[in-house]
């Protein structure tokens, strides 16, 4: 405990550095996955291509990917951009599939009704399909957020500053408290981000909240964040 109390500034700067790597990667993978997932949902061939590609990408171990990217992109191995690209790729591997599945799950009756009312292709996606897919999209984004936060720490062995560096430093200097602090902060950060995304998802779907006056049943929210499908968990 004394080590932790004496090193609070170090812990907070590592936490911020961690967020500096994780947040851009999470945001980028969600934003990029939306159009890619839509393409996968819309065209059969592209779905096969994207699912195969992201599946292979997901099979690539993280540490080797951190080492490989500099040779392909010309980044430095300890550059933040290098780590962010690697993490975004993993995020995409998870999220593209989630987006495609979420769009698939929108009832065709609803999209047909919207088309009949004169919604163009873009308006259909933005105003009908995406809003209805929000619960499934949030579930996917939560999985991406939690696994990204944990994955960032791997970059610590290469010397990139994040909470992962606490493990490296604590191990080399034999400070148990430093490693424990890093573990607790990483897990806590993941849980906080997970909860925030869940709240955001709920705020974005006011129609899903149970309304006592009309007694509408709240739409079922998939629990994929808590229950990974076999064969996809990492």
């Amino acid at each position, binding site marked *: 405990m004394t080590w932790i109390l004496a090193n609070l500034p170090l812990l907070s700067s590592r936490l911020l550095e961690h967020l500096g790597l994780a947040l851009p990667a999470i945001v980028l993978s969600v934003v990029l996955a939306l159009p890619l997932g839509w393409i996968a949902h819309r065209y059969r061939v592209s779905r096969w291509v994207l699912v195969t590609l992201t599946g292979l990408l997901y099979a690539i*171990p993280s540490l080797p990917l951190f080492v490989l990217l500099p040779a392909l992109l010309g980044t430095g191995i300890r550059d933040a951009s290098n780590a962010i690209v690697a993490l975004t790729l993993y995020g995409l591997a998870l999220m593209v599939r989630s987006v495609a599945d979420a769009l698939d799950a929108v009832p065709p009756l609803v999209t047909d009704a919207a088309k009949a009312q004169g919604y163009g292709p873009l308006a259909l996606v933005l105003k009908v399909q995406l809003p209805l897919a929000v619960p499934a999209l949030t579930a996917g984004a939560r999985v991406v957020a939690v696994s990204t936060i944990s994955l960032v720490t791997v970059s610590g062995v290469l010397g990139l500053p994040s909470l992962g560096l606490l493990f490296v430093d604590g191990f080399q200097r034999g400070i148990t408290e430093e490693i424990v602090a890093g573990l607790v902060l990483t897990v806590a950060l993941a849980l906080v981000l997970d909860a925030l995304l869940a709240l955001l998802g709920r705020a974005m779907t006011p129609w899903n909240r149970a309304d006592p006056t009309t007694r509408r049943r709240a739409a079922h929210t998939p629990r994929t964040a808590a229950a990974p499908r076999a064969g996809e968990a990492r």
Partner: protein
Amino acid sequence: MNYLVDAWHWLLDPTTWPGPDGLGARTLEHLAYTVLVVLAAAIVTVPIGWWVGHTGRGRNAVVLISGAARAIPSLGLVTLLALWLGLGLPAPVITLVILAIPPLLAGAYSGVEAAPPQVVDAARAQGMTERQILLRVEVPLGLGLLMGGVRSAVLQVVATVMLAAYVGSGGLGRFLFLGLKTQDYAMMLGTSLMTVALALVLDLALAGAQRLARRRVR
């Protein structure tokens, strides 16, 4: 691209491969760690998953475990255990087993649970005991999902074995950390390519096994 050429030369260099410290031995070691850890985890975990899937008891606990495990950074776990248990095999093996448990548990449990209730009821009506229902009906029907769980467990473990070398064990991580220390990027890159190849080969093989397991059911 120059770097890739250097890495390629390192991989093709005849001195890279032989000997107990060579790439050949380290690759086999990496593979052996992976297979043994997943097997050990499966022997303990899969029967529990089957039991949970059959009885429905402890379902929430299983879902919770597989969700929470995602948040635990394996580097933190392995360094913490290595400080307590010392350098060598125990720390990475325990970490890897912990890592392999959630996907195996989820695969075993979801496979059994996904067996159509009509089929299970029919088996029960024909006088099968609960044990027979589990082992002869639900488990064979859930083989595809179980293989999916095995596949993701192997993927995670083969990636994380890299960290074993960080706390003084073997595997392909040896070359990666040696290259990092001596600033030999060709060695780091070559090892990385080797590891990626190993992971992809394993994944493709298990994808094939998964497909076979599914086809047998139909």
